[in-house]
């Protein structure tokens, strides 16, 4: 129980989000370009973090299908900033030892000759520590 609470507090602190401001309007999910690729939608990140239900989020592929496009941040009428919670949960996962989602040895297979450097540095910043 204690762990669950600590984890929740850590996520809230890292993100700077106040999940209690959410009024459950669903606008973040309605505007999310990745919503049909996310098992947990942005509004679910908000209420699951609020409830302290972090572990299912940590196990979810949704952490890697969020595009960090910030549409949910821009369009939330309550300024909740759901993408910052997605980021904090992802960091809670990849900051664990050996938990990098993308490894340098994965690159040769993913790379193509037109791929801009920007894509590679961005993906490493998002998926690895």
């Amino acid at each position, binding site marked *: 129980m204690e762990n669950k609470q600590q984890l929740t507090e850590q996520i809230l*602190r890292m993100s700077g989000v106040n999940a209690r401001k959410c009024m459950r309007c669903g606008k973040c999910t309605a505007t999310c370009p990745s919503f049909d690729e996310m098992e947990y939608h942005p509004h679910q990140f908000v209420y699951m973090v609020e409830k302290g239900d972090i572990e299912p989020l940590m196990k979810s592929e949704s952490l890697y299908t969020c595009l960090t*496009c910030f549409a949910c941040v*821009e369009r939330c009428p309550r300024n909740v900033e759901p993408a910052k919670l997605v980021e904090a949960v992802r960091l809670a996962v990849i900051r664990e030892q050996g938990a990098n989602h993308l490894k340098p040895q994965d690159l040769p297979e993913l790379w193509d000759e037109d791929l*801009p450097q920007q*894509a590679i540095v*961005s993906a490493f910043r998002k998926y690895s520590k």
Partner: protein
Amino acid sequence: MVFSYYPGCTLKTKAKDLDRYARISAEALGVTLEELPEWQCCGGVYPVAKDEIATKLSSVRALNSAGEMGNDLVTLCSACHNVIKQVNNDMRTDENIVLKVNNYLKLDKPYAGETNVLHYLEMLRDAVGFDKIKEKVTNPLTGVKIAPYYGCLLLRPGSVMQFDDPENPSIMEDFIRAIGAEPVSYSMRNECCGGYVTLENKSLAAKKSNNVLESAVSAGAQMVITACPLCLYNLNKNGSDYDIPVHYFTELLAQALGLK
């Protein structure tokens, strides 16, 4: 007019055209872009978490370096622009980040967000002026229907970027008019192309990019312009359902100014 200029890693490699045409056009418009003597990669995406410090240092170094020369800092790649402007905002507003960054960097004078950051488009709009550009155009792109593609990074978060209205921007449309072409209005201009997700999820990036192109093409666009190497890559490579050309806006600027 003199500005410090931060090109970023991609403009030195895969996106040389974005950089090259920006430099020659600036010169023709009476703007001197002085590349920062030393700069490091911004990291591509803004480190969102409040406790990320080391990942913000390269941006602060660039900001401080321009500040020491007494210059505003011009960026061009949408991603660098997003990262550097957001980090600058942290240095203006987040005491914890300011303290830790300055403790680490030990600059001659602590940095607290004093440098002003401008995207190249903002420099065109606010320092040069679109009217002035119009006067200098010798080779107008008359009758060409161009879809301005903003994507996410130029605009969001609107409160920090302060680049344009994040839901109803007009700077690229005004740019298109200045070079004599016709802006096409379409609904997906500020929606995501899929971004870096293309690295491990091509199908997701393909869906997003094709959605953008479908919207532009059905509005009658003959061409799409962008300021972002990754948007260009996604729209070209992953938006394969549509055959519409995608160009850097600087390339068209150089062309209109008769430099290409």
